[in-house]
């Protein structure tokens, strides 16, 4: 039977506030355990939550960015369950009246085609603490530093049909929240996590099949892998005539499998009710308009601008706008050298390769955008050759921090002796010498069929480059050689 895959994603994004959603504790990552957990975060009796204005602003900003209905009244609810990393006994979240209602984003697939994926809602909630299951006298260790960190949970419609679309959606959300500056987007630190809802149905059937939810997938690659192994698992069961159990599963990247997470002795019953400690959040049109005014240029708009105004290809524009950091770096480089296409070639070519090879991201790039731009400008004005540029690039990459030469690309080019000779008189001199020293090759050239001559020029170019120690401008060398050789024919 032919099956259709149905995927919906729930993305949790930590909001980049300084303090927690309901308390004045710091949200900084990596501090010593429980040093950022206040009485409110610990859920001690008698404390009251007070909502963080910045968390609200960030959630509204997200809503505006995806063209969603921002709800003027939203309400916090309690989701009741017992787990030691949530000492209050409930999670404060938004069930019936989320801050952000229906919106949509466009995703771009590998072949450049785009699809619109609707976003059902996004609501505010608090993160839980962390359970450490290493052996502490046979007990579990609890660190509540993360408890109360503000999150938005972004829920998609079940509109994705394969793992690649799901990854494209996750990447696009990542790009949007980082462009907005509302989330640092650091997946390795859990700043964004993704729950993947997956089900299969016979192609053509309207009704959805039973779904499973793969919890807390924390990388783009894992989202693709987890969904694909889960699709396989469900297909095998269904084709054997079995039924899918609705359950929560965990992805194990080492074993490349998903496995059931909890024994379903008692079905979850969260007994949601409006949080009596928090009043409804009410905002007005002016508030939303003021936030809309602060929206930065978003990836789609930037991509379009790179294509329309700078003539970049769709692919190049998409790659270069994928993250805010890369887009900023590229734009600074391009503006410095004044050539977007050349800048795109260098950023996507040499620079990306070096970043990959050294396993650093663009934030950790040892070459500043200003230096790369300055170097590209020197390629453009023929001061250095493409080959010489690679040496300059390598030298810039390896510059010690604080090295003075780092501030002056021209001085670096000089010190490396890579300045091209573009002076026609000097090049003519070298060409004359080479022709005089290779008289027999010149004879061969003259006696050769005209259509064979083109290839033979290469030999002389090589000799001239060698004689100039690689410093001659190759374009000019070609031109002068052709001219001089043709004069002899």
């Amino acid at each position, binding site marked *: 039977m032919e099956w259709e895959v149905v995927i919906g994603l729930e993305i949790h994004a930590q909001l980049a506030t300084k303090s927690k959603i309901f308390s004045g*504790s710091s949200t900084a990552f990596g501090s010593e355990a429980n040093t950022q957990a206040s009485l409110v975060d610990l859920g001690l009796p008698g404390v009251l939550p007070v909502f963080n204005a910045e968390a609200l602003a960030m959630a509204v900003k997200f809503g505006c960015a995806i063209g969603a209905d921002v709800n003027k009244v939203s309400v916090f609810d309690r989701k009741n369950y017992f787990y030691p990393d949530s000492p209050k006994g409930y999670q404060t979240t938004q069930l019936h009246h989320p801050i952000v209602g229906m919106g949509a984003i466009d995703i771009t697939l590998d072949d450049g085609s785009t699809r619109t994926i609707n976003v059902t809602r996004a609501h505010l909630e608090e993160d839980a603490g962390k*359970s450490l299951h290493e052996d502490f006298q046979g007990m579990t260790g*609890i660190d509540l530093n993360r408890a109360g960190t503000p999150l938005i949970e972004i829920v998609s419609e079940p509109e994705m049909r394969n793992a690649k679309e799901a990854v494209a959606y996750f990447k696009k959300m990542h790009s949007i929240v980082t462009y907005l500056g509302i989330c640092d987007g650091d997946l390795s630190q859990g700043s964004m996590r993704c729950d993947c809802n997956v089900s299969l149905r016979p192609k053509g059937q309207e009704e959805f099949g039973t779904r499973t939810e793969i919890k807390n997938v924390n990388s783009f690659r894992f989202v693709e892998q987890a969904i694909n192994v889960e699709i396989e698992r469900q297909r095998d069961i269904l084709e054997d005539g079995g039924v899918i159990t609705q359950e929560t599963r965990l992805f194990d990247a080492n074993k490349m499998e998903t496995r059931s997470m909890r024994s379903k002795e008692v079905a979850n019953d969260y007994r949601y009710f409006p949080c009596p400690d928090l009043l409804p959040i009410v905002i007005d049109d002016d508030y939303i308009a003021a936030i809309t005014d602060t929206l930065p240029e978003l990836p789609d708009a930037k991509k379009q601008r790179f294509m329309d105004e700078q003539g970049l290809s769709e692919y190049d524009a998409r790659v270069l706008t994928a993250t805010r950091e890369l887009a900023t770096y590229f734009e600074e480089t391009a503006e410095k050298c004044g050539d977007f296409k050349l800048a795109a070639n260098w950023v996507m070519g040499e620079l990306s390769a070096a970043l990959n090879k050294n396993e650093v991201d663009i934030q950790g790039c040892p070459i500043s955008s200003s230096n790369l731009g300055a170097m590209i400008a020197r390629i453009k004005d023929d001061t250095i050759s493409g080959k010489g540029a690679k040496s300059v690039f390598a030298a810039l990459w390896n510059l010690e921090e604080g090295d003075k030469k780092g501030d002056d690309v021209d001085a670096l080019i000089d010190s490396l002796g890579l300045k091209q000779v573009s002076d026609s008189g000097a090049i003519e001199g070298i060409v004359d010498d080479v022709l005089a020293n290779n008289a027999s090759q010149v004879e061969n050239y003259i006696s050769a069929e005209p259509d064979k001559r083109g290839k033979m020029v290469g030999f002389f170019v090589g000799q001239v480059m060698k004689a100039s120690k690689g410093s001659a401008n190759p374009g000019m060398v070609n031109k002068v050689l052709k001219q001089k050789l043709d004069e002899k024919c």
Partner: protein
Amino acid sequence: MALDREDVKNIAQLARLELSDEDIGQYQTDLSNILELVEQMNAVNTDDVQPMAHPTDAVQRLRSDVVTETNQREKYMSNAPAQENGLFLVPKVID
């Protein structure tokens, strides 16, 4: 609406309360009575009434995003029955 013994056991499980068999009967009566009281309210016509999230007419006040809490771990942990390396220790739970 009358609750049966299984309902009471389920509610107790959700609240992580241990009930003896004798207790269950008493809770069955008490909780059922509460639900009956609530059911009486269902007789009131609420067609044109917006559900409210809070009994007062007030709206949530916001605080500015400033870190105001300092590290008080030693004090906060002084009541914890078990701790190690700054972590609260709890019975092993893997859900």
